[in-house]
């Protein structure tokens, strides 16, 4: 078997093992959440009997390990269960499948993450490479200071500043990004512009500085000096000799930031009223809607594991020593 394929399969196996551990953690963490759904939904009208009836109906009276096995068993088959909410009121069951609740929101989140990535990744690579190229110049310092400034501010602050500038004072973009399934692509892009810019400003510094550091690190290596001695120009040295060896750390940090775009943007969603999956999860936690919380957490875990796996694979493919082991 090709060594790369072997490593990839190995990593995939490790990823599955991680996912299993994560599912255990998610389940036990939610077990430890104070309060229960019956009380949360019945509110001040909750008496002991109604809460008990509710728990029975939802299967919450089963021991934890049974519920865990049911949940994991369902999740493996792509069934994340049924939401707790909407089950009350005179016996009619209007609860929705967790997957139906999450899918449109997840699609919105992935859309925003992709738009941001399409802007942020090339920009950070370009800025990182050029600032390595012109190390310690005014250009380098300006880029560093600016990106560090934008990453230092909390997201909501960056968001409000952008709204003030680009929605209120110079109304170029809308401050509400409330897209839905029927929004056409162009409108969707236009509405998502400000949240995407905000997120870009928040993540560029990390990726750009990692690119710069990885390249500069390599510039001290003997083989780079050799290249220099053989007459390669600075641009050639960086693009041809340093960059190919720097892909692994860059890919890791990009994967990390992409994962963040999927799982950690609830503040930006709230400020721009963007119907993403983060808001859904926060709502679900508030109302103790356990299947939805578990579903979201599981999807987030899968995102992290997958993206890191991809970064690993990129690291292996771009590293000749790993690609052609002795």
């Amino acid at each position: 078997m090709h060594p790369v394929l072997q490593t990839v399969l190995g990593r995939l196996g490790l990823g599955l093992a991680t996912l299993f551990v994560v599912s255990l953690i998610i389940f036990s963490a939610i077990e430890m959440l104070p309060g229960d759904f019956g009380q949360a939904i019945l509110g001040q009208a909750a008496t002991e009997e109604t809460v008990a009836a509710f728990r029975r109906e939802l299967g919450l009276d089963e021991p934890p390990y049974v519920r865990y096995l049911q949940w994991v068993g369902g999740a493996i088959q792509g069934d994340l269960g049924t939401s707790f909410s909407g089950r009350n009121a005179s016996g009619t069951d209007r609860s929705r499948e967790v997957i139906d609740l999450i899918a449109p929101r997840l699609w919105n989140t992935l859309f925003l993450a992709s738009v941001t990535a399409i802007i942020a990744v090339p920009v950070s690579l370009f800025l990182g490479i050029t600032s390595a190229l012109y190390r310690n110049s005014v250009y380098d310092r300006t880029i560093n200071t600016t990106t560090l400034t934008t990453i230092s501010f909390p997201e909501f602050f960056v968001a409000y500043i952008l709204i003030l500038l680009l929605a209120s004072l110079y109304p170029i973009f809308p401050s509400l990004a409330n897209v839905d399934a029927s929004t056409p692509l162009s409108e969707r892009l236009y509405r998502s512009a400000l949240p995407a810019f905000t997120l870009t400003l928040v993540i560029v510094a990390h990726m750009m500085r990692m690119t710069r550091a990885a390249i500069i690190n390599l510039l001290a290596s003997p083989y780079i000096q050799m290249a220099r001695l053989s007459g390669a120009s600075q641009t050639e040295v960086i693009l041809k000799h340093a960059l190919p060896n720097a892909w692994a750390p860059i890919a890791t940090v990009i994967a990390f930031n992409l994962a963040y775009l999927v799982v950690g943007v609830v503040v930006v969603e709230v400020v721009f009223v963007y119907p993403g999956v983060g808001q859904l999860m926060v709502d679900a936690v508030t109302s103790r809607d356990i299947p939805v919380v578990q579903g979201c957490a599981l999807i987030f875990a899968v995102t992290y594991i997958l993206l890191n796996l991809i970064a690993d694979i990129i690291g292996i493919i771009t590293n000749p020593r790993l690609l052609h082991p002795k």
Partner: protein
Amino acid sequence: MSKLEYRAMQELKYRSGQIDRRTFVRSLLATGVALPSALSLAGQVAASTPKSGGRFRMGLGHGSTTDTLDSATSENHFTLVNGYTFGNHLTEVSNTGELIPELAESFESDDAQKWVFNLRQGVEFHNGKTMTSEDVVASYNHHMGEDSTSAAKGLLTQVKSLKADGKNKVIFELENPNADFPFIVSDYHISIRPAGDMASGVGTGGYILQSFEPGVKSVLKKNPNYWKEGKAHFDEVELISIIDPTARQNALTSGDIDAMDRVDLKTVNLFKRNKDIYIWDATGTAHYTFPMRLSVAPFDNYDLRMALKWSIKRQELVDKILLGYGAIGNDHPISTANRYHNAELPQREFDADKAAYHYKKSGHSGKIQLSAADAAFAGAVDAAQLMAASAAEAGMEIEVIREPKDGYWSNVWNNDAKGWCACYWGGRPTEDWMFSAAYTDDTEWNDTAWKTTDAAVKFNKLVKEARAELDDNKRRELYYECQRLIYDDGGTICPIFNSYVSANSKAIATDENIAANWDSDGAKCVERWWFA
């Protein structure tokens, strides 16, 4: 015909479009009105004449992914506004606070125990079905079933039986007389839906639901067959849930929405400077209270309660906690927006002498603990600090205990573990409703545990008497006395009534009267407002 009559006639013609603006202004000039006033009068008339059309987008500070279209589970303001937009009820509270018939054409009762509602005929649901008594009965049974978990279940336990009498009449038989029953049926939970379909959002309202995404938005379009005349002017409506107040205000400033509720009071003065919007507020029945539990010492002591009631600077609380958007209360829960508000009770003010007198008489010494958290209302902890400061002037020591927000309603409020805490009430449209929610001895929410004193016993008797009384003057007397009893002996301190503060784009016009029974023009803004 006098000049005034002529002007009024011309105004009517202008409103109804029989004459144009130029003719109207000319006729005003002819009756001696100066040109500038004539022009502004024409503008006012034009603005107050509802116009049809436009897409109305409203940002609401509530909404959650657990929201449904079933009115039985309506609990937040988003579901309220949404429900009132696509649905109707048997009765409605008008924008002037009167109870008017809605899907019922009229209602009557001889003894306040048997209520007959005559239904409006020829009203169609959005699915084309004609509304009949069968639908009304089904809609009520939806909340009354044995295992119903409807939030209106408690309200309707008083209904002994309910039956249709022909297609257009419904008869309610109550357990005990209740003169306010027609008010109860206007409750937002009890929306009339077609029998067998309580949850899909089909109603008889001015707008037809197009799409609903819980916690995100609701899109509706005008119902061309709407039975109510002169209502529902917009062509399309979008209700958007925008929880973050800054985001909501940004959206209004940048023109992404036309109206919003719940303006952030901290920034309202800056917000006001925007020339494209106007801020309006309505003082309704919502109020903040500090219930003292009579079941816990030292609050079982009448003089101590009195001492605390006299030690509060109410206007300071309105100015500092509500930033002026509210009114002072008089230690009972009935607001000026209610029918039988007792304005004859002397307004209680801060009086260090009286407070000190009662405090001395109570014989209490040492700290008095007051629990507060901002879960009770925004600024509750600050309000408690202000109360502690003013009480100190009267020689009393209040220790403010900051409680965790989480679990406040189960661990602090209405709990013997804490004798005195902060609380808020959304208020109720009728006296009886408010009293039976929090002050009578049979409600679980009696957060003052005011049940056994002589005054409390008398209060409970009077509330029952008033409930069965149909004579307006007698009811007024009874309710005045009830308010006096709470004011005097009751355990609640009700220092302030908070206003609903909202903002609209200047493009939105409203009637000069805005309802105060709920936020957003009684939550019926969508059918009441229009684009000027």
